[in-house]
């Protein structure tokens, strides 16, 4: 029983990471109706930036927030310079651009920082909390950070004029222009926010999986599964989906299919959801009047 509980709790902890990457995916999907395959690599690259800042002697939390700002700017620049010119292009061209970005960021990180695995510090205490060994302080901290990010995002979209404008621009660009919203900038802002969220996820996952240029590839797959399970157009659903995928992956990996086949859980989930319930558990089913 104790080990089962451990698997579930560890699943929730990794689920928190999947949740934040899934959240970043959903953000860009909502704003642009594109699935950004480079999301994980941008997160990985941002984590390397944080690592450099910490190596340069910066305190952890200063480096943490500075990295978020840098990632935000990076996201905006990628949208303005690379994604914008292909805005009107067919969806496959856009996919190719995203895969190109993925490869570029991956190689860039390998070139600058080499492929040697690096340790990344955790801001949370090393001692396990409440004297239990079920879960580490870092895992609890990471879940906490994910929930804070979700709450902040929710408040931003719900209660600020800019958040409202971003939702409007995603939904009806033409009417948005007619009320004076600069739609192009809203998309760039969405990219900035998504890559900032990705950076947070990267910094939270790096102490667990260690820092190397390929650290996000598996995570991105789980995050896709999470986003699809929750509904690709529902941020809250994506977070819940992240926790569900995390727990499923851990429990199935421990008891049913073994650790080596864990990643296939994500693939089965992706295909399963797409076949049975394409809009996800909590997604909006689109009904159109004809």
């Amino acid at each position, binding site marked *: 029983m104790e080990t089962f509980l451990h698997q579930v709790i560890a699943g929730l902890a990794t689920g928190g990471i999947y949740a934040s990457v899934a959240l970043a995916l959903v953000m860009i999907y909502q704003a642009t109706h594109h699935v950004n395959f480079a999301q994980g690599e941008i997160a990985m690259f941002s984590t390397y930036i944080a690592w450099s800042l910490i190596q340069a002697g910066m305190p952890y939390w200063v480096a943490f927030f500075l990295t978020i700002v840098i990632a935000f700017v990076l996201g905006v620049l990628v949208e303005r310079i690379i994604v914008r010119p292909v805005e009107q292009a067919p969806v496959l061209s856009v996919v190719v651009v995203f895969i190109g970005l993925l490869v570029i960021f991956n190689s860039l990180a390998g070139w600058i920082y080499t492929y040697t695995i690096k340790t990344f510090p955790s801001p949370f205490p090393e001692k396990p909390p409440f004297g239990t060994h079920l879960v580490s302080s870092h895992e609890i901290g990471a879940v906490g950070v994910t929930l804070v990010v979700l709450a902040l995002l929710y408040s931003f979209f719900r209660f600020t004029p800019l958040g409202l404008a971003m939702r409007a621009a995603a*939904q009806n660009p033409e009417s948005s222009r*007619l*009320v004076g919203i600069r739609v192009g900038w809203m998309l760039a802002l969405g990219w900035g926010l998504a890559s900032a969220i990705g950076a947070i996820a990267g910094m939270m996952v790096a102490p667990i999986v260690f820092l190397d240029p390929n650290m996000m590839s598996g995570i991105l797959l789980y995050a896709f599964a999470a986003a699809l399970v929750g509904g690709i157009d529902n941020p809250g659903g994506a977070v819940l989906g992240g926790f569900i995928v995390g727990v499923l992956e851990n429990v199935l990996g421990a008891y049913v299919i073994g650790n080596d086949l864990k990643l296939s859980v994500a693939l089965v989930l992706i295909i399963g959801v797409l076949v049975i319930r394409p809009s996800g558990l909590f997604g909006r089913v689109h009904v159109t009047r004809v």
Partner: protein
Amino acid sequence: MAALLQVAGLHAAYGLTRVLHGIDFALEEGSITALLGANGAGKTTTLRALCSMVKVEGEVHFDGARIDGRATEDIVRLGIAHVPDGRGTFTHLTTEENLRLGAYVRRDKSSIAQDFERIYGYFPRLKERRHQQAGTLSGGEQQMLAVSRALMLRPKLLLLDEPSFGLAPLIVREIFAIMREINKTEKVSILLVEQNAAMALDLADHAYLIETGRVVLSGTSEDIKKDEAVRRSYLGY
């Protein structure tokens, strides 16, 4: 009275299909001006051209400044509110959020709150439905919402595209009456596009008749009503 809006030699095309072949018209400050014409004459395109929603050639002057070629978002900031064809409702947002978006470019936060009350005064039904998702409103309510969203900008000029489209005559009359009141009391100039020529001529001071992308007749509403050809083709008696 000075012309608030002056349009000269306006051309527009969708791809290779030319729709406007040099439209000229003017709208006097404080007036209601109607653009009349049959389906496909180019009325909607003219409105879209004024807001840079289609590529245009020609000159458009508004309030003393040349505005053709400027971005839609910037034209809105000059005080032109456009109620588009199909109403342009943000269907997934609530009624209140739709109205808040209408005031997006305004910075005078305190008077925005008053404007909500003013609008709810004109259309009490929108107040009842303010937390309802806008896509679930009836056609008439959505038209009221579209007009209200435009008014939240506190525009100098209101562009109305077929406000009567698909609505019961009773509701159309209600909306037109409020348009007249807004024009009188708030000095908002209105450019109205309508297929329903009789109603448009009752509301408007001036009218232009557009046929296949050209202005073929213009004058005061009274004169146009008396025109033999208009009476037979557009008023139907």
